């Protein structure tokens, strides 16, 4: 009996996927570099956040037909938001303005952040930029963009016949 057979089910399955140990090592290394470089996209954002400027948090969801992009923009005016859509990129730009009504005010807490922001979201499938819809309610921006016909067609299902 091989030692492998004594391992729990999960461990066996992992080894079966990338049978050669060097292959799995290479895969792991690739992953390390991928994650590292991906980190650069995120780092400036985190960095500027530390300096007290505003950058919205974004969720992206998809199904077969469309993408839904949601951004938290509390306190931003509708007229200060600018959404542009190209074939595979959605850009949300805007400014969260600090209210200026009260002249001499002393701050006790200042946890909220202000400033202009720009987030570009690359999407993995082609989209129909002309059919994008955006709604803004209670500080949450909702963008719906249908996927293009060609993007939908990419995943054509092949039926399997039994012989």
């Amino acid at each position, binding site marked *: 009996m091989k030692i492998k057979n004594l391992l729990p089910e999960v461990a066996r399955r992992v080894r079966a996927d990338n049978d050669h140990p060097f292959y799995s090592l290479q895969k792991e290394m690739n992953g390390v570099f991928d994650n590292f470089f991906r980190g650069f996209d995120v780092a400036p954002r985190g960095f500027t956040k530390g300096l007290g400027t505003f950058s919205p948090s974004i969720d992206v969801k998809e199904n077969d037909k469309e*993408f839904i992009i949601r951004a938290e*923009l509390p306190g931003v005016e509708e007229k200060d938001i600018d959404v542009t859509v190209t074939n595979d990129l959605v850009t949300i730009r805007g400014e969260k303005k600090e209210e200026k009504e009260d002249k001499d005010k002393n701050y006790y807490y200042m946890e909220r952040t202000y400033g202009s922001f720009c987030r570009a979201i690359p999407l993995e499938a082609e989209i129909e930029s002309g059919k994008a819809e955006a709604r803004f309610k209670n500080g949450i921006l909702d963008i719906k963009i249908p996927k293009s016909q060609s993007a939908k067609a990419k995943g054509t299902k092949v039926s399997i016949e039994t012989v």
Partner: protein
Amino acid sequence: MSDKDLQKTENVAVTEKIRNVKTFIPRVDIYETKEALFLIADMPGVDEATVDVELEKNILKISGRVENGKVKDYNLVLSEYDVGDYERTFTLSDEIDRDKIRATVKQGVLRLELPKAEKVKPKKIAINAA
């Protein structure tokens, strides 16, 4: 490297929840003018129907529920924030005129105006030439 929830901090201290959602501590600004204290809280997703402001003794509690925050039957591609309720409490001093507290909600931002009581407002004393 996850910078999720930098805008929102989860409140882990909330006791015994009935709703099965996370609770966040909203970020607030508090500033003082001659007339009043202002408290401004970022609570994206709430409106005037789902936000609550309670004052009991000298504890001011602001809370908000986020309804329909979840989108079903979609795959998550990128997630930078969680959807959940908001809750935060503050202790007020006696210097606030409790009957005149006003609250407004606009675009997910709660704004509370806490007017100072007459007795603590700064007064200028006129000086007469003798």
